[in-house]
């Protein structure tokens, strides 16, 4: 079946502009995650959604970052007033949402964001 999809694949923006990144999880997956992969660094956890529960936002680096998940499916990550240090690959993942046991996360191909 279809995997996790993300759009756009590449985004170039000017410093100070807002951007929206989209993630379509695997159908039926109740958990959704956003990560950031900066040059020379590992992936950094940003935010986690599970069903109708309040999201875990503990990884968001500043209040310029926000995310929402509409209807328990598609998610949008918004970065306001972008800065050059926001340049990175933003990865989305989804999982079945099983609790108390290993719940494999399936990753999308990512959105490469470049802030000029």
């Amino acid at each position, binding site marked *: 079946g279809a*995997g*996790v999809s993300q759009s756009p694949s590449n985004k170039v923006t000017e410093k100070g502009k807002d951007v929206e990144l989209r993630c379509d999880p695997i159908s039926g997956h109740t*958990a959704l*995650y956003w*990560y950031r992969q900066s040059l*020379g*660094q*590992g*992936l*950094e*956890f940003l935010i*986690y959604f*599970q069903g109708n529960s309040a999201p*875990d936002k503990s*990884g968001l680096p500043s209040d310029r970052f926000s995310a929402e998940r509409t209807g328990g499916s598609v998610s949008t990550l918004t970065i306001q007033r972008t800065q050059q240090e926001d340049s990175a690959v933003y*990865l989305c*993942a989804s999982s079945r949402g099983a*609790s*108390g*046991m*290993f*719940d*494999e*996360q*399936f*990753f*999308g*191909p*990512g959105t490469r964001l470049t802030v000029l």
Partner: protein
Amino acid sequence: AQSVTQLDSHVSVSEGTPVLLRCNYSSSYSPSLFWYVQHPNKGLQLLLKYTSAATLVKGINGFEAEFKKSETSFHLTKPSAHMSDAAEYFCVVSDPSGFQKLVFGTGTRLLVSP
């Protein structure tokens, strides 16, 4: 806090020779550890996982890893490299609050030459 250290940013091997990608972890709890692989222009894929069962874990494509608590290591190995193994490999530990938060290492790029 949990963390993983990947000791090599790049590893180069010849096709048909063994692969060793090193990872050391730091955890206050019994960790769950994973290796993910990222091929160019493709999403991350789970290679194998250790979740406190057998210490020698077998994964896809002939890879395996051994959990050594005394050495706090979880090195990834493969007896014979194939050209298609060229990719970036990430050692990952999960947050003790659950498997949801994954803490990634900085990655090791595996280069395979003919």
